[in-house]
Every structure is written in structure tokens, then in C-alpha cells.
């Protein structure tokens, strides 16, 4: 069975500090990977997707970057956090352009 693990579960960070969030998928070879951001009480906004190792496509510009260093790993990062980065970050995987399988998410509070 496939599993998706996001880390950390929650973060409290200062404005201007760096950030790195991670996501690992086990039990699935070459999945399509996605990062979403969700404001409190809001919808999901797609940030990035990746269909293969080393290749990441940006969907919206939010002063964030993403990388896929391994087939099963997706990293979201920034060197300088903004207040507007607060929210819920969700990683997801899919195959064959069908349903998305989401992780449990990371709650980020920027103060």
C-alpha cells in the first residue's frame, strides 16, 4: 500500500526566516507530485507539480520554490518567509492524471 508522509506536522517561524517542508511517498514508483497551499477557511491553491525527478513546474508565484531530489521526495522551501506564507501546506501524489492522494499537511504560522 502507498503511504505519504509530510514533515513537520506544524511549524512556527519568524518573518524573514528560511523554511523547508518535506513530503515522502512510499510504495509508488514515479508518482506525479503536487504542493498545495490552503489559507485558513480557504480553498486549495496549487503551487507546484513534478512528474519526474529533478523537474518541477511552478503554477503560481508565492516566493516559494520546490525541488524533487529523489523519486519519492518533494521539498518546498523559501529563504525568507513572509506573513502571507502562513497556512496549511499539503503534498499530494497521483498516477495517470487521476485522483490526488493527499498527506496530512503541515500547518505553518509565520509571526
Amino acid at each position: 500500500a502507498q503511504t505519504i508522509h509530510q514533515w513537520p506536522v506544524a511549524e512556527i517561524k519568524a518573518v524573514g526566516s528560511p523554511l523547508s517542508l518535506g513530503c515522502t511517498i512510499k510504495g509508488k514508483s514515479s508518482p506525479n507530485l503536487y504542493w498545495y497551499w490552503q489559507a485558513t477557511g480557504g480553498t486549495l491553491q496549487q503551487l507546484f507539480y513534478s512528474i519526474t525527478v529533478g523537474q518541477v513546474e511552478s503554477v503560481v508565484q508565492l516566493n516559494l520554490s520546490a525541488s524533487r531530489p529523489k523519486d519519492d521526495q518533494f521539498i518546498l522551501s523559501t529563504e525568507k518567509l513572509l506573513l502571507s506564507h502562513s497556512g496549511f501546506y499539503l503534498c499530494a501524489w497521483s498516477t495517470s492524471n487521476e485522483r490526488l492522494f493527499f498527506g496530512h499537511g503541515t500547518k505553518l504560522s509565520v509571526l
Partner: protein
Amino acid sequence: SQWGEENLQALSIQEGEDVTMNCSYKTYTTVVHWYRQDSGRGPALIILIRSNEREKRSGRLRATLDTSSQSSSLSITAAQCEDTAVYFCATRTGGYKVVFGSGTRLLVSP
């Protein structure tokens, strides 16, 4: 109804009632996904409907799709307290871009 960047809608009903949530989408699609998100968790797919299906049922869930009006609906029959959650529709707008609707927060009270 829900789409894009609008705020979450809220619906409050009593247990046993039926409820319908609507979704309209902007770009041609061949499938609409409906996800459920429980508080503090990631969304999970509950039903998907394809363009060649005008209606799809799964237990107490019923989804419809009208490609001519680019709209979809999700109905829950005899809602129960455990149906309390946020519900989103989602469509693929091309390639690997998946757009979620604004969502409906459903509260089912005993």
C-alpha cells in the same frame, strides 16, 4: 455554488436532511472530482464523475455533471453528524494543473 477564489460557503442542516452542494467550473473537463476535508487533515476523494456519466452514486452520495453548463453537484441523502466536513469540487484544467472550487463547509447537527 463554489469556484476558485471565493470564500468557503457554509451550510448548516439537521441530521436526516438531504443536502446539495453545487460547483461550476470554467475550463472544459472530462471529469469532476469531489473531495472531503476533515478539520486539520488533507482532502480525500469521495466520488468522481466523468463526462459520459450524467449521474454517479456511491452510498448516500450522488454526483451529477452537466458539461453544457459546466456545472456539477454533490448531494448527500439523510445526512449524518459524521458528514460534517468541508467539501470541494476539483477539475483538471490541463496537464497537471488541478483547480479546486472554493468549498462548502457542511455542519450536520443532531
